[in-house]
């Protein structure tokens, strides 16, 4: 009996002592953690690391303290230790968005492509304690930037399309996605995004983006229409104005535009020939080249193009213009000007020609 009573008494004493001990540990851990956060705000990152380390020493199983330490270690550049702590956090909570994001960033830094992509996906679909939507979106943008940096444009486009399907109704965000798709060479997908935005909202950015997407797909008429709508909503926007001006020139020059009369089509094709000839002559003059005979015969034929309308000759003139332009490309070392309407028209025609 005495033994049992003694055991009970020892249990009571140990409980009291252990409770005091735990309370002290908790208080010390919290104090160090709070101090660490203050030091972080003051950009005293190394001291903050020490404080977070102390906090963790008092509370080994605290997710919050370990995460704070890991993030502070990343700030001071101690990536090895940060990796170790983050790996441990990931094991204890595999769905944590922030942990997976940081692991992804570390993997990206050391060039581990597969690991980085895996962790990014876990971050995107993981749990975020605050602002989950924004964090997921930002994580995805991080991933896209990483993929583009590693020349994985197809994968980046895939991620953008995935994101477009998942994000809430947010026109600026969708505009951003559309512009990124444009930038990475997916104008058709970009156009769909912008159309989707415009179906619900009137948005100058979306019109402009749509115009750009149509422009990239050589649909200059549709691009002109979109740019006009954008300019109407933002008349002071010089970029839109310039883009529209270029599109207008292209459309005015393009003999393949729909609903043109045959006379107009002939005039435009003759204009195409004369511009292509001028470009070739300029190039030959500039280079001081003696033209090969084939070029000379082409040019002679171009000069013979009659101002009188011979509407059956439109396709021939268009073909002649193309040949002159190709001759120019072979002859000239310098490329044509960036916003040369002639170049756009002839490129469009070349794509359409089987």
């Amino acid at each position: 009996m005495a033994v049992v009573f003694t055991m009970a008494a020892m249990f009571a004493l140990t409980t009291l002592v252990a409770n005091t001990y735990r309370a002290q540990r908790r208080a010390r851990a919290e104090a160090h953690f709070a101090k660490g956060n203050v030091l972080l705000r003051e950009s005293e990152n190394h001291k903050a690391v020490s404080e977070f380390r102390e906090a963790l020493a008092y509370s080994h199983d605290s997710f919050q303290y370990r995460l704070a330490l890991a993030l502070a270690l990343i700030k001071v550049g101690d990536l090895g230790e940060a990796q170790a702590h983050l790996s441990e956090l990931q094991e204890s909570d595999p769905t944590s968005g922030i942990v997976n994001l940081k692991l992804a960033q570390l993997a990206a830094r050391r060039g581990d492509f597969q690991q980085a992509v895996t962790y990014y996906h876990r971050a995107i679909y993981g749990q975020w304690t605050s602002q989950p939507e924004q964090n997921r979106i930002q994580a995805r943008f991080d991933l896209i930037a990483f993929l583009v940096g590693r020349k994985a444009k197809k994968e980046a486009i895939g991620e953008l399309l995935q994101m477009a399907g998942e994000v809430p109704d947010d026109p600026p965000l969708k505009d951003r996605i559309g512009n990124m798709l444009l930038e990475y060479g997916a104008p058709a997908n970009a156009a769909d995004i912008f159309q989707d935005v415009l179906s619900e909202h009137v948005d100058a950015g979306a019109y402009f983006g749509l115009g750009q997407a149509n422009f990239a797909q050589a649909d200059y008429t549709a691009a002109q229409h979109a740019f006009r709508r954008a300019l109407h909503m933002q008349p002071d926007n010089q970029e839109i104005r310039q883009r529209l001006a270029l599109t207008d020139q292209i459309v005015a020059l393009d003999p393949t535009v729909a609903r043109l009369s045959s006379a107009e089509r002939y005039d435009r094709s003759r204009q195409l020939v004369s511009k292509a000839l001028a470009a070739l002559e300029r190039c030959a003059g500039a280079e001081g080249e003696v033209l090969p005979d084939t070029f000379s015969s082409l040019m002679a034929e171009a000069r013979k193009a009659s101002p009188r309308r011979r509407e059956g000759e439109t396709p021939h003139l268009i073909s002649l213009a193309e040949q002159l332009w190709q001759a120019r490309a072979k002859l000239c070392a310098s490329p044509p000007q960036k916003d040369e309407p002639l170049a756009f028209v002839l490129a469009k025609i070349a794509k359409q020609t089987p």
Partner: protein
Amino acid sequence: MTDAGTQLKRSYATWLDWLTISETQRFLILSIFIGIFAGLMVVCFHIAIEFISWYSLGSFTGRYNLVRLIAPAAGGLVAAFLVLRVFRAAQGSGVNQTKAALYIYDGHVPFSTVLGKFLACSTAIGSGNSLGPEDPALQMGAGVASLLGRIFHLPRENMRLIAPVGAAAGIAAAFNTPITGVLFVMEEVVAGWSAAVVGSIVLAAVSAVVVVRWFLGNEPLFRVPHLENVSPSDLIVYAAIGIAGGLLSALFIHLVERLHERVEHLPSWTKYARPVAAGLVVGIVGLWFPEVMGAGYGTIDNALHNRFLWDTLLALGLLKMMVTLFCFSAGTPGGMFAPTLFTGAMVGGGLGALALRYWPFPGGSTGAYVLVGMGTFFAGVFRAPMTSIFMVFEVSASYVIILPVMIANTVAYFISRSLHPVPFFTMLARQEGVDLPSAEERRTTAILRVEDAMRSPETVPSGGTTVADALAYLQKLGQEWFLVSREYKGWSYIRLPELEAAVQAGKQEQTLRNVFPLPLAPRIYPDLALDTALRLLGSCPILPVTNRAHPDQLVGSLTLEDVHKAYGIAPGPISPEPVGADSEIIPASGAREAYTGDGEFRES
């Protein structure tokens, strides 16, 4: 006493009688109580160390904290006073003292040892001296067990076994690792696997760990980060870590031996000054490397998380070894477990981190090398290979690392053993004038078996053979005792003079089974220890040796004479040698004496 009280007492006695539990069962139940008490003790011990550390050392942030310089020395002085003046039985690490209780003092560990160990070691370790809490916890557990054994008036045989039960509870609670606690006590304290005590040891260890986890949580001793699978080329690095661990551990044992010897020859008044001097050394080193102070588990945890570079890791390992050497040799009370884990972890981590830089093949993480290194120094110093392997496995909860741990620890064990054959605790015990057994010695001592002593099988007569024929055949063999095969399996035995007497009595034409009783002789097997066979020879002068797979097949026979030959004992009576002045005399154990660890025996 009132009628109600008498009634209650009678009911209680009846209830106990009704339970009718055997002595073995009582011992097992007592083991659980021991585990609970030991667990409570260790919880309080752990908390005491932490509190002292908080208020004497504070945090380790920032260097050049002058408190760190004097705290270990002050703590060492207080601890020295406690063990030299007040609790003299609390000196030493605790392991040898527990073994002495088992082998010399019938399991007696005075309770004052428990109090002394608690106060002195918590002060010494909490103030920053480079020692560990596990060995003291082991002895405190043994002390608690011994006290309970005396309270419950255990018989002598059980009292002897109670100390290791408490020791296992103490060390399992201190490490929060039940398997390690059991294994270490079986390997080092009991020095062998004894079926009589293993169940109690396990129960006590488990109970103690349950109590510790109840109060302090389920957290493992270390938070081990995720470990990748080990590649074959990595095993070479782990083997190299084992080699380093083995070499360093042998050096460490050698240095402890030398320094201990020198220190023991210093004047007695220096007994107070030595822990102070050692504490000052720790304090000076601690100004630049506070990580070497105290047990060091926090630093090991940091090393597991890649906090340190390879040069820092190596420096910490070597410095820890040095300060531990000073603290332990100076007589500061405390244990060696934690410092050996620390040293091994740092050296292993340092070498591993170095390999990660220059090894051409892809390697593991620094954390993995730290973890594996932890066990190597331990295995080399304490020569407890199974304990070291399971300990790393238990604290890491990772099976991925088991193969490197086995390789590294085994390499360290064999290298240390070949360079310094005497194990650490045995060396200490001998320096203190006591010869205690160790599992290491038992491993290296060859065991004689029946096959080493038996003689080849001869053709044995059956029970149907006549006395005359049997005598004619057996006289040629020239031995006194013979086997006879019985009709219904097995063998019996007969003596030559009895055959001769039967012939003289005119029974030569009768069969052996008609003339002699032919009792059944117990069978033995070639792989049995000769010690086991010797016990059977007490009741049967010649034993048949049979094959385990074919028990009816006789493969030899064994007599006392054969056993004597195997042990190298010449035939004839043994004359005792007179006891000279140089003989070792171990004082007769009394329940009132205690081994203090300094070669003296004092009343408890």
